[in-house]
């Protein structure tokens, strides 16, 4: 069993290598980085310079805030659309139910890159490019979310719903006040999946955003690299650290939920 820990430690160190060097370079002065020495520990600390440069040159907090707005907006609408639809597909009989479920299954097959071109043309035609709307709207409908909630809601006992109906609750209030509170595991799993994928997304923001105002963290890193950093790897790494930190911190605080969330939702990328 000693061997197991030794092998894991070695592989773990390998996986962590980029983080170690990223953080190390972010506190080293340029001259030291260019000497390419193999010591991770800096001889001179230049943290204030590097991080100061990033914070002074680009609106880091604004990028992070944009990330929060975009991911929050996407998640909110995904839940608003998918939770009632998932409930209806799981527990109610209505005309067109079969077609609706077929549409969900069809939607599962389509990667988000496929509708991107027409959505771009539409956004451009409506003057919506470079706006929160353009960043959020295309992802508000998630066939995967509907599917996931339908599966989860199907397992809820019917007695629970009968009792609520006997109490005189309508179907809409049952969805939000009975079904959703009983579905927190599915909801948190989906929330984590959704936030992780949209926080990290580059493809769509790169297409619709043009300036700093609506740039997400991923774009922020890209802008800083092309406009400010040049060969200044210290400042570049400082920017990378600042943008990576929020989600990594959230992960470290709730790692079991993250891993479970991605494992349950990973059942579909």
């Amino acid at each position, binding site marked *: 069993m000693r061997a197991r820990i030794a092998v894991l430690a070695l592989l773990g160190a390998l996986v962590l290598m980029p983080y170690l060097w990223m953080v190390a370079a972010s506190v080293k002065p340029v001259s030291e980085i260019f000497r390419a020495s193999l010591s991770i520990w800096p001889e001179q600390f230049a943290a204030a310079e590097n991080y100061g440069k990033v914070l002074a040159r680009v609106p880091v907090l604004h990028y992070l805030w944009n990330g929060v707005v975009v991911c929050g907006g996407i998640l909110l609408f995904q839940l608003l659309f998918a939770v009632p*639809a998932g409930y209806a597909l799981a527990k109610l009989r209505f005309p067109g139910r079969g077609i609706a479920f077929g549409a969900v299954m069809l939607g599962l097959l389509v990667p988000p890159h496929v509708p991107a071109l027409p959505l771009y043309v539409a956004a451009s035609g409506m003057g919506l490019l470079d706006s929160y709307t353009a960043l959020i709207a295309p992802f508000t409908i998630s066939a995967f979310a509907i599917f996931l909630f339908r599966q989860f809601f199907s397992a809820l006992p019917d007695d629970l719903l009968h009792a609520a109906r006997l109490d005189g609750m309508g179907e809409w209030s049952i969805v939000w006040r009975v079904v959703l509170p009983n579905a927190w595991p599915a909801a948190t799993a989906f929330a984590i999946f959704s936030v992780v994928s949209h926080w990290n997304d580059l493809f769509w923001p790169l297409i619709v955003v043009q300036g700093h105002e609506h740039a997400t963290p991923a774009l922020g890193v890209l802008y800083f690299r092309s406009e400010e950093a040049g060969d200044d790897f210290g400042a570049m790494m400082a920017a990378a650290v600042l943008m990576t930190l929020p989600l990594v911190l959230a992960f470290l605080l709730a790692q079991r939920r993250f891993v479970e969330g991605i494992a349950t939702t990973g059942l579909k990328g």
Partner: protein
Amino acid sequence: MAGALMTLPAGIAYLLLLLLPTLATVLLAFTDYELGATALGWIGLDNFREMLADRGFGVSVRNTLVYVGLVTPVSILGGLGLALLVEAGARGRAFFRAVFFLPVVSLTVAMAAAWQYLLHPTIGPVNAALRAMGVGTPFWLSSSDTVLLSLAAIGVWESIGFNMVLFMAGLTAIPRELYAAAEVDGARGGFDRFRLVTWPLLGPTTLFVLTISMIRSLRVFDTVAVLTQGGPNKASEVLLFTMYQQGFTYLRLGYSAAITLVFLAVVLALMWVQTRVLDKRVHYA
């Protein structure tokens, strides 16, 4: 009727944001539409003919296949190995799971920048280490010989923890009694247990991880867009990056849509193969 009403908002959003745009992409692929043009012409299969004739597109497809061919097996075998290793004992389980999973939740663009520094030909720590060992120092991301390999290494690093977590979920679903039964039947070492119980029962999980890994690596875009822009000399040009460039740099939306359809066709084919094999072969339950 409440049911129909409850699916209505989702239905409208689905129609406007998913179904119609997807159909529009399909139609666009048969036109010569360029962004900003006032008219568009139906050109039938011309876009696809151009694709076949275009050497750049051929290179892009080849690069994508090489990338998928490198990342998929390594990240699956690696993910399985890590899952078995982490699950084999209680000590350090949560810690190492977190370590290997970290790249999955890290901002890809930022980590790509970190890799760029790590793999920098002159000041990068990787080459500094190689130099210290007296070995040759490749140009990694800036040489057409090594660029795909470097990108694939980053791809493996990114997805190995994701695959590990999926395999861990599959491992916990295997009933403990089966291992005891296998032991009674004479399975001695760890390898016998793996060959007789773990591997066959992981069949559905493995097939699933295989499909999802291929689709995920087929989608490679971020690292290419950040690190190489398809270069040097198209050596790292991949399908989605070509689609992006044709559509949004050269504004040739019709051609870009045709590339998107090729991408979609490959994704659908992979999913179809998965369901077919899943129905026939690997089902033990």
